[in-house]
């Protein structure tokens, strides 16, 4: 094998400095790694790596602190917004983000996210919705779709029994302290770019001290959905988006200028799954 002289090439792709040089534990085809990469790129672009603290959840992303090249810690299940509040309040000039799944944030951690939003904490929340509990092997989550078969809803989600899926972005958007609440998806390139732009805005909202920012990201879980990676991405589009429409649920007036200033997606670095 010969060494390549990089000077002769244009660099079109590199690992963001904000990601560590390790292999993730995520399943093949899972989009967690991709979302990690988007966050890593945003942290690099904003130049905040040395100033950022990551709060990992309990769930598939429990090891997130291993993948971000920033100071990190690991919160009890659902408590990341409270733990992040403790960190941010004692270091208001640092950037603090939580990375939470739908079991963590939408079930056991509803109290913590609602009140962090209520207080208008200057935190950024990346909320990954894959419609089930991934780490424990695919149980029903509050976000599980009607009729969706999981190991704890083996006959499909029964509305009579457990009610309708929870729409978290819509819920949080009603809280005045949450100034930027959007839902995005990573099932194709166009949406991946939109997701990255939203994550960037979310961090900028925090840096501007405008209150809580949350990006809900629809994410695939081929293993527990028992699908191929491709069909899982297709399922996001066909099954999830009709229940969880993409869009901006709250963009506070003060946040508007940040979304306008954003670069168009096509001018940004290329993105690929992590």
């Amino acid at each position, binding site marked *: 094998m010969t060494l390549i002289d990089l000077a002769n090439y244009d660099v079109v792709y590199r690992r963001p400095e904000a990601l560590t040089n390790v292999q993730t534990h995520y399943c093949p085809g899972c989009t967690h790694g991709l979302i990690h990469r988007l966050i890593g790129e945003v942290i690099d672009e904003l130049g905040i790596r040395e*100033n950022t*603290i990551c709060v990992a959840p309990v769930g598939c992303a429990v090891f997130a602190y291993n993948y971000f090249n920033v100071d*990190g*810690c690991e919160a009890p299940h659902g*408590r990341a917004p409270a*733990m992040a509040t*403790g960190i941010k*309040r004692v270091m208001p000039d640092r950037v603090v983000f939580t990375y939470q799944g739908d079991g963590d944030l939408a079930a056991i951690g509803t*109290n913590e996210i609602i009140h962090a939003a209520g207080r208008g904490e200057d935190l950024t929340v990346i909320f990954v919705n894959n419609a089930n509990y991934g780490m424990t092997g695919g149980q029903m989550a509050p976000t599980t779709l009607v009729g969706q078969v999981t190991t704890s809803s083996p006959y499909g989600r029964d509305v009579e029994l457990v009610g309708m899926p929870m729409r978290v972005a819509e819920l949080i958007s009603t809280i005045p302290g949450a100034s930027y609440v959007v839902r995005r998806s990573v099932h194709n390139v166009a949406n991946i770019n939109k997701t990255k732009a939203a994550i960037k805005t979310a961090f900028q909202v925090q840096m501007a001290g405008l209150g809580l920012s949350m990006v809900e990201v629809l994410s695939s879980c081929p293993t527990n959905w028992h699908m191929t990676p491709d069909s899982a991405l297709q399922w996001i589009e066909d099954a999830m988006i009709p229940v969880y429409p993409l869009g901006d649920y709250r963009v506070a007036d003060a946040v508007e200028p940040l979304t306008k200033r954003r670069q168009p997606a096509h001018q940004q670095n290329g993105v690929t799954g992590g």
Partner: protein
Amino acid sequence: MAKELWKGNEAIAEAALRAGVEAYFGYPITPQTELLEYMAREIPKYPGRVFLQAESELAAVNMVYGAACAGVRVLSSSSSPGISLMTEGLSYIAGTEVPAVLVDIMRGGPGLGNIMPSQGDYFQMTKSLGHGDFHPIVLAPSTVQEAVDLTYGAFELAETYRTVVVILADGAIGQMMEPVVMPPARPVMTEEERADWALRGAKDRERRILTSLHMNAEGLERMNLGLQSKLARIQRNELRWQETMTDDAEVLMVAFGTAGRICSSVVQSARRAGLKVGLLRPISLWPFPEQRLLELAERVQQILVVEMNAGQMVLDVKAAVAGRAPVHFYGRLGGVVPLPDEISQQIDKLVSQPAGAGYKTGASNGFGHATVVPAGDARAEGRI
């Protein structure tokens, strides 16, 4: 320094401020609420320090966890039901080995119980403050001054061992006023003084990770062995207790906190009556002064443990004295504070019978009726 009259809850809060506490997170619950209210009023006068009322004790303890990970001096306070809710986070704090100080102003339980003084959290604090193998350092003041002094020193203790330190008091100490000499105010930590594990942002250094997660069994065992060796060091170095007239005591009382100070009144009246009664008042409940108890057990005739619960510390006393002396128990429940006269009656009963002569109970379940019951199940046996 001049003495000032302080209410226990407020004195503890002021002592924490003077110790350089940088952040307080809490939730209102009687009978500790004045502590939270004092912080709400006073902390805004110190720029850069943080007061935040959380939405629950669950959130409060996790805010503490976050601030502790940032390497700041952080405090929370609650009362028994709130502590139950905090145990998840406290286990994480113990597993992550970050320092934090917690005040428990105990009230009657179980369940919602009541708001009166109790010592029903002894087991929870010393034995099971969450899942997994750990013990916080548990310090039990018996006066407002002692509550101030223990709180003032608790932060350094927490930092030295990277552990949770609990100030375990009850509603009586929280609510009462006593003269106090406040310690001098210390400045808060500077950035240079921050611990070398604190999460402050990975500027000009490798990133840091604080977690209690160790997926590999051998790795978690190694972590636990390290934790246990730290706890063993604490057991060697951090024992605290106070003795009153134990030199020639024939009856040794063992009691902590409010029960301990009440028993000191009993010692005085017993001595006036010519009875050789002494008192060992554990101040550190974990670690527990078991070696000293064993020494005293060798030379006293009887031991009477007095608690405001159904008999919790008495199990540690029994374990410590290992049968060297008969251990009796007297307890009041439900927030009833035992008064000196009823404890004196128990002493009288004990000394009127020869040691170990099959001391019997007056009632089978007579906690609330001023009846001595020997500890544990061996109720018909004085010697346990």
